[in-house]
């Protein structure tokens, strides 16, 4: 990862800050948020049980849990894409809608979801182009392209890139608006194992770089299936129960940053993953088998 540090060398006013700021306005505050679906047959289906949660500014939070436990639903509620059935959501003290309006959210999905008719560079610029009144980010897109390792591929169409490169472009698109909150929904799930392991450290690096000194340090909510991925990158791992989803464990990961791949062989890492795995298997969660969809 030595090349990483040289590439991240600040040639423009990059602010590298990732200490958690406990006194700042929290990035996310959920109070008794729940989500109930009405199925086609008219039955009520609880997707997310009442959940209260505070994510501090600068905190990288991973959300792990079995498939269908409501991780993605919770993420969509924070992003303001799914209205909760009850409870209160605040993002930097605002409603999610206001956070959208001020472009304070950076979304990355499981699939890259790029516009097929635009070049890589134009895809990355998309967030800057939309809702232009709120575009005050000083992001240098060319520098961002270099940071995500896509230099030379600016004019390529998404279909001409590999899955990993597409996901880097999607990451760059989310970062282009320099959002103080990154929301990532299993962003590396569709990638092969080797690319996946690389990407988590790239994400750590990109997350920690910000251009806008007026914004709080960047926070992230990272939904993943992979315990190793969560422990490797997060400051805090939240474990959710099977549906209806509810947070059953809140595990701090105190390893210092920047973290390196070698860390994944340390006793501490192995210990932390064991704690998360134990929480996933704990008796309170196994009313429904863990692998149940």
């Amino acid at each position, binding site marked *: 990862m030595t*090349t*990483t540090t040289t590439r991240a060398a600040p040639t423009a006013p990059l602010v590298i800050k990732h200490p958690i700021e406990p006194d700042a306005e929290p990035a996310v505050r959920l109070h008794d948020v729940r989500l109930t679906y009405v199925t086609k047959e008219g039955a009520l289906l609880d997707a997310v049980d009442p959940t209260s949660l505070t994510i501090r500014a600068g905190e990288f939070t991973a959300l792990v849990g079995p498939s269908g436990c409501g991780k993605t639903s919770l993420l*969509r509620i924070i*992003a*303001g*894409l799914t209205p909760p059935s009850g409870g209160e959501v605040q993002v930097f003290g605002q409603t999610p*809608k206001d956070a*959208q*309006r001020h*472009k304070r*959210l950076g*979304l990355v*999905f499981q*699939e890259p*979801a790029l*516009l*097929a*008719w635009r070049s890589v560079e134009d895809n990355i610029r*998309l*967030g800057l*182009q*939309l*809702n232009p009144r*709120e575009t005050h980010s000083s992001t240098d897109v060319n520098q961002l392209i*270099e940071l995500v*390792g*896509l*230099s*030379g*591929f600016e*004019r*390529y*169409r998404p279909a*001409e*890139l*590999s899955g*990993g*490169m597409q996901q880097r472009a999607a990451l760059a*698109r989310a970062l282009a*608006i320099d959002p103080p909150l990154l929301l990532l929904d299993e962003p590396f799930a569709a990638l092969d194992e080797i*690319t996946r392991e690389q990407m988590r450290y790239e994400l750590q690096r990109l997350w920690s770089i910000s251009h806008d000194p007026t914004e709080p340090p960047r926070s992230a909510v990272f939904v993943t299936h992979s315990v190793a991925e969560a422990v490797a990158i997060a400051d805090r791992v939240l474990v959710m129960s099977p549906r209806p989803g509810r947070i059953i464990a809140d595990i701090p990961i105190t390893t210092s940053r920047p973290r390196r791949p070698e860390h994944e062989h340390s006793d501490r890492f192995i210990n932390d993953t064991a704690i998360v795995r134990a929480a996933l298997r704990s008796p309170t969660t196994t009313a429904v088998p863990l692998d149940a969809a």
Partner: protein
Amino acid sequence: MVTEPIRDLKQRDAPTPRRIPLSSPDVRPLLAWILPPLIALLLVAVTVELWVRVGDVSIWVMPRPTGVIENFFADFGRYFSEGMKTLAVSLGGLALGTAAATLLAAGVAHSQILERAVLPIAIMVKVTPVVAFIPLFIIWLGYGWYPKIAIAALITYFPVLVNAIAGFRDIDPRMHDFFRSVDASTWEIFRHLRLPAAVPYLFASLKISVTLSLIGAVVAEFFLAGHGGLGAVVWIEQNNLRLEKVFAAVLMLTLIGVTLSTAVFAAERLLSWRIDQPVSAS
């Protein structure tokens, strides 16, 4: 597909994008593509020519192909200028029908109520033989260009409507989520997401409607034979039993049809980011 870049890109030359060239400088594939139908066409013409000459077929039944070609070039000015009239009607109708259908589709794609209100009417008009409206259009719009353009427009709008609705709706839901996450306006979502997504669909429907517009124009010209156009030429010369001229006019129509279709295919390759088959217009 390009492989994953190695970590230190700076040490590598920036790759140049590799694309498939649209036109190959090698003419052999083009000849292989063009020669078989040309030879087949020639064979048909020669057969007809022999049949007419040897069988002594009456000129009132079938003219000699050589006679048709001769007449076509001898009176080329007339066929060309009448052809331009037909082309104008066809293109006018296509433009009007496509614009109206695209606008309507944009509305329908955004509103379920509008869809339920408008689609049944659109389908009713579609299943009614459009030709039946020509006498009405002549009464309403006068004896001239307008009723002809109206018929060409009416006959083209439906495939465009169906395909445009499908195109405006065929958007990646996650992409839509991204647009919402930065509070993009409905117009921005339309301009940057729905409209480009619909382009392949629009071209697919244009391939159908471009030939339909020509049919509409010619049929309308039968009714308005005093106002010119190749349809009028066919109608008048058929009444005069000058079949050579009928065939020469049809030949010009074929050339116009081929040109229009080729133009749509060329425009599609130039402007569309994906080549599609049309959505069934039923």
